């Protein structure tokens, strides 16, 4: 029997589909010529990056942090503050945002190392709120709720559009190689059973910190790019409801897959734009969808799609682990 690597096959399929999706997004401006809607897709790509980053941390490593939007905000403010005080542009601001966000993510990761489940959620939630409150109250330093103006990079929408597509593509490619490597094995082992992983020699401290740092860095990158696109940043970027949106996108799309966060973000954000016209019911509907999906369709839309295509004979149900 030929040596197969089953988890890698799953990964390859997910990666391929996500590439197709990105190709579709790249081709869209041919059809979608309205600048407003191009902007909508750009913002959805910002959320896609946040979703991918959160999925890496929560879906692949099992660390359910409630601070994804916070790192987006931190990245945006890094580049915003640098330009406000030193007049720098994206060339300096964006890399700085990655470093600063990544650095804070590393610290947070070290701090929450020993926490699990609700304790981890509560700590990251508090961290998120503290960050937002600090930025919004430090009016002298950050201009608080007034926000900061950030210089743009290009003229016109399309260049931003393709900048986001390229960055998204690079992120997905990087992630694919990461998950295929031993790093992917270790992260998912930590997710599935941290104690077992430790007893098999996986360096828990290193890899958990790694996940937090990388996730934060990607979010920071997204935030900085968003800042230069919208040319404005405010503490609202770090609101808990923004984190709620990111979580919705990933859960609805498919937690723990390479396609889920991307597809979820695009779908949810674009759909929410349509819903905006009919009275702002987005958050109601999406939170309800998250509840339904979490309750009944854990693998999200991607999982539903897969089972529709597979139609293999029903596998024996996973044994209920008595973990009380």
């Amino acid at each position, binding site marked *: 029997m030929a040596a197969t*690597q089953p988890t890698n096959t799953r990964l390859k399929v997910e990666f391929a589909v996500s590439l197709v999706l990105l190709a579709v997004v790249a081709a869209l401006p041919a059809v979608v010529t309205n600048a407003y809607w191009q902007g909508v897709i750009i913002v959805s790509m910002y959320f896609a990056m946040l979703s991918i980053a959160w999925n890496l941390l929560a879906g692949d490593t099992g660390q359910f942090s409630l601070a994804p939007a916070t790192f987006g905000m931190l990245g945006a403010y890094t580049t915003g503050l640098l330009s406000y005080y030193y007049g720098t542009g994206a060339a300096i601001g964006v890399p700085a945002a990655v470093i600063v966000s990544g650095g804070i993510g590393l610290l947070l990761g070290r701090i929450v190392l020993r926490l699990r489940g609700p304790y981890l959620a509560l700590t990251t939630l508090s961290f998120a709120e503290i960050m937002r409150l600090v930025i919004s109250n430090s009016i002298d330093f950050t201009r608080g709720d007034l926000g900061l103006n950030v210089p743009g990079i290009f003229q016109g929408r399309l260049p931003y559009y393709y900048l986001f597509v390229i960055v998204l593509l690079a992120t997905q490619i990087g992630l694919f190689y990461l998950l295929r490597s*031993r790093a992917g094995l270790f992260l998912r082992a930590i997710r599935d059973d941290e104690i077992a992983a430790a007893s*098999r020699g996986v360096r828990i401290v290193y890899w958990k910190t790694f996940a937090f740092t990388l996730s934060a860095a990607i979010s920071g990158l997204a935030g900085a790019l968003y800042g230069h696109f919208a040319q404005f940043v405010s503490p609202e970027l770090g609101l808990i409801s923004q984190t709620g949106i990111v979580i919705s996108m990933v859960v609805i799309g498919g937690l723990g897959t390479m396609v889920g966060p991307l597809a979820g973000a695009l779908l949810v954000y674009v759909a929410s734009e349509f819903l905006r016209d009919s009275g702002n019911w987005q958050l109601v509907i999406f939170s309800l969808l998250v509840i339904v999906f979490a309750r009944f369709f854990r693998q999200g839309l991607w999982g539903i799609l897969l089972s529709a295509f597979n139609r293999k004979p029903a596998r024996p149900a996973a044994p209920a682990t008595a973990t009380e």
Partner: protein
Amino acid sequence: MPCLAIKNVSKAFGGLKAIDNASFSIEAGELVGLIGPNGSGKTTLLNILSGHLSCDSGSVELDGKPITGLRPEVLARHGVLRMFQLTRSFPRMSAFDNLMVTGCALGLSQSDAEKRAMKLLEDLSLTRIMGLDAGQLSGGQMKLLEFGSCFMVPPRIALLDEPFAAVHPTLKEIMSGFIRSRHAEGQTFIVVSHDMPVVVELCPRSVCMNAGRVIADETTRKVLSDKVVIEAYLGGAAA
């Protein structure tokens, strides 16, 4: 120098003394059974050996070097690998990947790990299900998989906690056959088990614990006919 030296180890949980001044040594290449009634401290001792618990006093030495207080992942890389009483695996990863995790974590290159994983799967008759997620395997198959993980890189000492509990006789055969052949190659084992026939068959030497203390440490036959041991199991002075 013994492979593993346990010296005056004690561990208490609140007022309960789980391990009371336990000492024994294991030479390289030995296959030792660790027996005793429920609650005698066997699993607690194993937890201390594998780094999941710290002991209150005493020391443990691996090849002469103290290993008390080291974390499980560090101990694993020193060659101390274990099975858990309640089988632990990575349910959302394939059986193959379950083995790969250990291999890569212990320093094997990707291709070496792949080769060893395939060989292990073959030796354990698990090749057929290597593509299934560990969570979809039967209880016995999961146990066999966890068992196999200990041998991706030949361990300095393998700690097996109730490997035969609730396992199908066929799988039991596979496991004990594996243990026997590896032992013949010089692999050191500690096997915790309630399955007396298997302990007699596999382990030349046994250590018996009761209420946290080591009450017997000799050849298995002698231990099993030791009055103190029998009393411990049937209740009496020691309980």
